[in-house]
């Protein structure tokens, strides 16, 4: 009977056709309201030379076709609601649906950004409370919610550093980053007109303090650090590192992507950092949306506060004495933002994300946030322990350390040598088991890296099943490496030719 079963899965049989290849001339979903105003000569409305000659060739499809099309292709996605997603550095924790409900309330979702302050008190209060909570969580009291994502927060942070030094009459040129840093760190430094200087990593996976000391001079504007770093390790020398950097008058920037390890346990401000960005889409569980939206608020210390981007929200005694009110500060005469670097985007930031993050903070509260971090670290250590069992450990040893924080990095080097399969193959084979693979080939300094972040919202059963799948793949590869090399098999498409795609890029549909 199995001859009958096509070698293709049902999804594979559904060949990709774009919405532009569907429909037929004249079909439509939108019904335009009637023109209810007096007719006016077309030329008077808009002179011919400004008019588009041919309509854009958008799809011509009915509503049922649109629904089927996008529901159909949505099924070609793996997602967090469908399975384990231990993508290191990305904190793929469960997204409570309450947040979507709250954010969709018309009072939030249908509020115009230029609504008068008096008609936006709920929104401003929410932002003000979120600023306060983020300040408390980070130990850095002054918060701007404006940046649109982590890397945008980084840009804000480096520009703040620049402004801080320039205000002191200094044009410092260098930003130190460890070689474990996420790619957005160096990319940001360049965009902000500064230069990246790499700091070495020591044998334990932390900052090489001696190398740091050697490079920390008066031309250093800032040290950008992730702590726990991208190896999942909390730097034991953090206090010393902070001292070294501060000693040369530079600032410390905290890449908050890994904040999920330390909420309520340790605070960047207390570690000596001046600036931190938050990834609300990570630690504060904004759904990742297939690659955004995110939100990257920043919190800063007293000395950085004057340069903060505006607007920020403040609480003021209301004019008529009827209690407090909230205001958007667009220009500040003194205090935070008084020497603002300016705006980084339109309006006030990704408010929709603020609603979700704030709902999350309200739900968890002080204890819950701490509990989340503790459980995240517990889960990571448990999974690490499971992956230290035979037959895994010999092929996929942990890159550093015995314990880890909320994530850990394995090296696929031995696997590659022993079993002739690479980290990429392992990852692709995991797809057949219904798991999203860990982050692969990052951080760069670990050979054939696999970066695993289980998060606190996964059950022990899931962690066990994942460890079992890894073990199974390794055993299978020992017998027949071809299986992993040819994987995946059961996904909507099989391994894709990325090289061809980049060589001769086809990045839009060709229309008739």
């Amino acid at each position, binding site marked *: 009977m199995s001859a009958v079963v096509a070698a293709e899965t049902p999804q594979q049989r559904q060949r990709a056709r*774009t919405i532009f290849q569907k429909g037929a001339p004249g079909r439509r979903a939108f019904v335009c309201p009637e023109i209810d105003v007096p007719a006016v000569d077309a030329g008077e409305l808009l002179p011919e*030379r400004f008019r588009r*000659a041919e309509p854009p060739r958008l799809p011509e499809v009915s509503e049922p076709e649109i629904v089927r099309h996008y529901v159909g292709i949505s099924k070609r996605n*793996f997602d967090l*609601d469908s399975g384990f997603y231990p993508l290191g550095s990305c904190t793929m924790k469960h997204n409570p649906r309450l947040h979507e409900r709250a954010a969709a309330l018309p009072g939030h979702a249908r509020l115009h950004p230029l609504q008068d302050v008096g008609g936006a008190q709920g929104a401003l209060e929410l932002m003000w409370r979120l600023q306060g909570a983020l300040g408390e969580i980070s130990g850095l009291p002054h918060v701007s919610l404006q940046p649109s994502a982590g890397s945008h927060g980084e840009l804000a942070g480096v520009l703040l550093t620049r402004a801080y030094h320039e205000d002191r009459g200094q044009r410092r040129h260098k930003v130190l980053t460890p070689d474990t840093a996420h790619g957005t760190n160096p990319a940001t430094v360049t965009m902000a007109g500064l230069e990246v200087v790499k700091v070495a990593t020591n044998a334990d996976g932390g900052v090489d303090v001696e190398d740091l000391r050697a490079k920390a001079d008066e031309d250093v504007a800032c040290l950008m650090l992730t702590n726990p770093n991208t190896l999942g390790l909390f730097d034991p020398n953090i206090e010393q590192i902070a001292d070294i950097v501060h000693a040369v008058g530079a600032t410390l920037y905290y890449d908050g992507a890994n904040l999920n390890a330390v909420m309520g346990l340790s605070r960047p401000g207390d570690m000596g950092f001046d600036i931190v960005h938050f990834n609300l889409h990570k630690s504060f569980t904004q759904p990742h949306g297939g690659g955004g939206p995110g939100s990257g608020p920043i919190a800063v210390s007293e000395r950085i506060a004057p340069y903060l981007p505006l607007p920020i929200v403040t609480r003021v005694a209301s004019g008529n004495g009827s209690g407090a009110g909230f205001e958007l500060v667009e220009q500040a005469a003194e205090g935070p933002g008084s020497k603002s670097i300016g705006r980084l985007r339109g309006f006030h930031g990704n408010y929709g994300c603020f609603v979700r993050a704030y709902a999350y903070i309200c739900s968890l509260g002080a204890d819950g946030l701490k509990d989340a971090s503790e459980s995240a670290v517990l889960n990571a250590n448990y999974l690490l322990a499971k992956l230290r069992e035979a037959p895994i450990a010999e092929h996929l040893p942990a890159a550093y350390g015995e314990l880890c924080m909320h994530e850990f990095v394995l090296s696929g080097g031995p696997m590659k040598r022993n079993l002739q399969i690479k980290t990429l193959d392992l990852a692709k084979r995991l797809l057949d088991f219904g798991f999203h693979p860990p982050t692969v080939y990052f951080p760069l300094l670990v050979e054939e890296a696999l970066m695993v972040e289980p998060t606190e919202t996964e059950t022990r059963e899931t962690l066990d099943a994942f460890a079992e799948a890894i073990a199974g793949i390794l055993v299978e590869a020992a017998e027949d490496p071809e299986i992993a090399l040819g994987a995946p098999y059961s996904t909507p498409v099989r391994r894709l030719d990325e090289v061809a795609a980049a060589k001769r890029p086809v990045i839009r549909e060709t229309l008739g």
Partner: protein
Amino acid sequence: MLAAIGVDSLAEIFERQIPEGVRLGRALELPAGKGEQEVYEHLRSLAARNVSVEDQTSFLGAGMYDHYVPALIDMLMERSEFLTPYTPYQPEISQGGLQVMFEYQTAISELTGLPVSNASVYEGPSAVAAAGYMAKLHNGGTRIVVSAGLHPHSIQTLRTTAHGYEMEVVEVGLRDGVTDVEAWREACAVEGTSAAVFAQPNFYGAVEDAAALAEAARGGATGASGASGASGAGPAPVVICQVDPITLGVLRAPGECGVDVAVGEGQPLGNRLDFGGPSFGLFAAREEYMRRMPGRIAGETVDADGRRGFVLTLQTREQHIRREKATSNICTAQALNALGGVVYLAWLGRRGIVELGELLLARTHYARETLAALPGVEKLHEQPVVREFALRLDADVAAVRARCVAQGLNPGADLEALTHRVEDRGGLLVALTERRSRADIDRLAEVLGSAVAAEREHEVVGSGV
């Protein structure tokens, strides 16, 4: 679990890793956690203290617009399969998201008349800043010329970031509501000019002569920016246009006007207002910019069995590969919002986008003429407009607005409050969408008319005459 880990307590895991000096020895000062019901009630009570476009007939625009978002967009954006995955790093299990990007790129390319679109950037003003950075990478120039008709948030954002990448931002003023072409030509001719940026329609609602501006930016030379500038010396500046995508059913596409890069705020395309975000920024360009674009780009390819598939491509532009040499630092972008955008464009369809544009043209014209006929109200300029227009009131705008709001009607934005330009004093920026009917406009005329009248009287009285 602790036994498996080999520790005696949870605390041990932390004690062994976090130096005591930086351990937080106390509870966070935050309220205690709450159940779903209580959190919902709290968030609902906050929402109730906002006046949304459901509560008030609003003519606010100035960058974000109250368009009707069809219900199917909510449904799709809320589907777990689109809502909860991350960037499609594993293409074999991310074909849905990747195909959406590919379709989105196609739609934006069609809309703008430019061959290359990325899969979106954060939002409008930062897209302008990103385009400025791309111009610098492209031609190494040091100056960016911007029209004063650009959205003030775009100008401010550009200034903030250009300070980082070390470019000078030079503003060119307007003449009767549109960019002063001669001043623009001169400014662009200055050596080192890397980019020339204008908006279409501009912030005051006016339709710019985009083709003329593109031509003038290049010193009269037609064709794309490869040609050298008027000054003869350096290369011609990259011509960047910030568009309002909803107008592109009726306005000539930037690509047809000689524009090199089109950027814009995507919110009008099926994204809700959300008090200003998240939305998405569109970013399209001529072919030659393809390898310097910021952001994700999906490309077509085949799988091991020859099946059509999609992947993230041209990744050597990106931070995770190129690090400090990347063309942008963007990582998490706005995939979900861009999904809303492309679904909206499919929903509007080829005819719908034109019909909608015509509706906006007609209603905007009607609104403008009706309002400008009120005593104490005049047009701020005479240029054609599509969906938004500026008026000048012979009265205090804040006071007039407050009177209107008290009547449950938001008449539009206070221009000066946004631009901080004295010449905008008295300016009111009125936006239309398909949700504002003729009846709404008539009501606006009534309410605004009496508000202006009352204020003028009030001022007269106040001035002691």
